[in-house]
């Protein structure tokens, strides 16, 4: 069985971003291919096109030199392209076997024989008759893989399969994948973890900003070289003037903070230490899903930890909720601006009232002071050049950029000592990005501090005074921004280490 898969000149344009820009790649069976790239590099779009979830605007897919049309996931299945997504599509309360039989047209008895053969062949140990909810993440993934194997796939695509696996489960998975490859299945492995690429794959294609930037054999690559390709070296942006904060007052200190989550899709944070000086911007880089969400919520007070490990202006604030932290002059701009930082169904002035200080007097004696809130909102709209002066407008009618200006404005108009923001510019156009960047630089110049959690390295290098990287819930050493290069960031983000 010899399989050749070829994508030719694939383009996919979403409003405001080119997800795939004339992507051409060739794959042949017997090898494991890595598709490497940062978030938003276009890997997922390409995979969705191959699995029929998304239709390309241009370009063709060839299987064994024949052009195939992938209009739906069903078409992908018919062409023997199997896909295991990062998040499992299993019915938790049904048994393993029931999950497998749902999308199979075989008779139950035949299917059971076939599944048992597969289990024996690849040495999978799974009880077919227990409910899926009793399985570990690794076993659930095996069920997904078996579901693909039933259909005799020619191509198997794995989308960031190790993000929910333990080390041991990862090792097991790699053994299985190598065996599949030996059996003639073409494997495409999507990841942003550099070590995995080197230990598992034969060839690696690196994508950046929708384009394929390199295709090479993994034996010719090292962690550093791949990191370079993944992150890019376009550092021509203006950097902020780096200040020396040696003598400045320390404003925030986190010591030995741990967080353990009950949710397997969340990341645990281990032994977190950081400190922040007055007027300083600390950048936290990392590929998303490495604990940024949890870190933001710990800083904002949405996750309450123990009382002693977070000190802000010499006060223990670990047990305070977000509103109480605001009283101590902290401000927060979360990543999800549409459904967390603001409520689309609420009017602008109501969204402004979400950031409620005692001294703002929005609610006097428990009653809503609409006049005061509206005056305050008007001030935000004009000071932060939001493209409307109608405070009665529902915020769902604001563009992303204007909504973000409103949120940043709401957070900043009260002159907080610390602003924590998480991906403040994702999905915005260049004009809005510049505005937000200028604003963030400005607050540092006014002696206010900021923590910038971002997955955009250009942004981090432009705005931060010091930078560290979060990987699997651990923070790297904190480095001065002038000593940091994109290459270093790339290595740390991919789980490598630098001296």
């Amino acid at each position: 069985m010899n399989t050749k898969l070829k994508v030719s000149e694939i383009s996919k344009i979403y409003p405001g971003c080119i997800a795939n820009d004339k992507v051409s790649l060739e794959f042949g069976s017997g090898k494991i291919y890595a598709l490497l790239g940062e978030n938003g590099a276009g890997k997922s779009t390409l995979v969705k096109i191959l699995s029929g979830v998304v239709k390309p605007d241009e370009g063709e897919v060839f299987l064994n030199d024949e052009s195939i049309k992938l209009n739906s996931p069903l078409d992908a299945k018919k062409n023997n392209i199997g896909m295991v997504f990062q998040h499992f599509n299993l019915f938790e309360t049904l048994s393993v076997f029931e999950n497998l039989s749902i999308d199979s047209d075989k008779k139950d008895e035949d299917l059971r024989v076939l599944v048992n053969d597969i289990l024996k062949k690849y040495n999978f140990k799974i009880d077919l008759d227990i409910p899926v909810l009793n399985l570990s993440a690794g076993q659930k993934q095996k069920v997904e893989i078996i579901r693909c194997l039933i259909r005799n796939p020619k191509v198997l695509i794995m989308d960031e399969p190790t993000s929910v696996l333990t080390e041991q489960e990862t090792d097991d998975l790699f053994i299985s994948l190598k065996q599949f490859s030996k059996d003639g299945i073409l494997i495409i492995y999507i990841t942003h973890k550099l070590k995995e690429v080197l230990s598992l794959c034969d060839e690696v294609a690196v994508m950046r900003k929708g384009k394929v930037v390199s295709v090479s054999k993994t034996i010719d690559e090292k962690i550093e070289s791949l990191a370079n390709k993944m992150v890019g070296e376009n550092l021509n942006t203006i950097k902020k003037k780096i200040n020396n904060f040696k003598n400045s007052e320390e404003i925030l200190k986190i010591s030995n903070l741990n967080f353990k989550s009950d949710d397997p899709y969340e990341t645990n944070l281990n032994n977190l230490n950081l400190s922040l000086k007055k007027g300083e911007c600390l950048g936290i880089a990392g590929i998303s899903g490495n604990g940024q969400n949890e870190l933001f919520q710990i800083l904002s007070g949405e996750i309450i930890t123990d009382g002693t490990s977070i000190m802000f202006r010499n006060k223990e604030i670990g047990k305070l909720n977000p509103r109480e932290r605001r009283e101590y002059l902290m401000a927060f701009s979360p990543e999800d601006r549409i459904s967390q930082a603001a409520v689309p169904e609420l009017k602008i002035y109501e969204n402004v009232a979400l950031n409620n200080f005692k001294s703002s007097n929005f609610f006097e004696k428990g009653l809503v002071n609409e006049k005061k809130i509206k005056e305050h909102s008007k001030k935000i709209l004009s000071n932060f050049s939001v493209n409307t002066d109608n405070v009665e407008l529902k915020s769902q009618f604001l563009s992303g950029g204007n909504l973000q200006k409103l949120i940043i404005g709401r957070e900043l108009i009260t002159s907080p000592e610390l602003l924590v923001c998480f991906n403040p510019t994702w999905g915005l156009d260049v004009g809005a990005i510049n505005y937000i960047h200028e604003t963030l630089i400005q607050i540092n110049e006014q002696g206010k501090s900021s923590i910038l959690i971002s997955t955009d390295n250009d942004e981090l290098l432009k705005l931060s005074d010091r930078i560290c990287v979060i990987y699997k819930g651990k923070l790297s050493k904190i480095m001065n921004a002038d000593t940091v290069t994109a290459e270093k960031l790339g290595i740390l983000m991919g789980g490598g280490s630098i001296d």
Partner: protein
Amino acid sequence: MEVQLIKIEKRNDVSRSIYFLTPVLAIFLTLFGGGIIFYILGFNPIEALKFFFITPISDLYGLSELLVKATPLCLIAIGLSFCFKSNNWNIGAEGQLIFGGIVGGGVALLFYNHEGFYVLPIIILSGAIGGMLFAMIPAILKTYFNTNEILVSLMLVYVAKLLLDYLVVGPWSNPEGFNFPETRQFSESARMSILFDGLRIHAGIFITLITVFLSWLILYKTYLGFQIKVSGLSLKTAKYAGYKGKTMIIIVFMISGACAGLAGVGEITGPIGQLHRNISPDYGFTAIIVAFLGRLNPVGIIFASLIVALTYLGAETAQIFLQVPKYTGQVFQGMILFFLLGSDYLLFFKIKFLGLKKNEL
């Protein structure tokens, strides 16, 4: 085989006037559906609907009865709107009503040979507190043990019903009552005053109206109301804004339970005058329909309670004149909810037809 592909998409903006008009549409559809049912049963639909919806309120007595039924419905629905607006699904208002009735009734029995202006307020207050405490059970279990409030509040309805059963049969039954499952009649001081001679409409309606006004004030003019609104729209945002989620859950359940308890005590001190097994014809459940039909809006709920109260009366007249079971009333209530949810779905989502596609499964 060719299949029609259908896609369901969220509508971006729904106009406010249509949002408040859909309940009216739902009522008309219910009338239409009811007409069809009567036709199938062999009645002239127009005549039957007239018996159902016009005859009951064509005299003063009927209008008074309408208000007697609407009073508890409106009160409970107002309370429920606090819960529903903040995404807390209190399904057990019936239990809170009964428990409020038990506590208020117990106090009324304590005072059975007392007279005095202070008796009734004490009874009313204790009824409200009873309902409130009973509603706090699902609230506390939800906040501290992560239980599902729908199940807990619903199951507690049966606990309250059985408790009432036990009390009226056993310890609280009327010593001179020949073992009928009912308590003594309450004293005159323990009864709501009747507003007009010969009609059953009682002072409880003022409690309802005052509660409606206070609820409007709380929901639209206070910080608490704002927090309830935000939590209902996005729990993530409420958390980010730092609202005390647990406290708020308990507060809305307390308000809701107090309203249901008030409704219970209003029934036993108003039209009933004692405790027996059936102090509520499922007002607590029907009020859920009232709350949604009224769009969780205080004014809307007033109108909705009148309409749903009419289905209770209509069922009684229909039973007398058409010899259909009085459960037809529940059929109508069910239809109202069904058509309301149906039209809401079409209001908030649009169905797109993507054309025919060959299916080769």
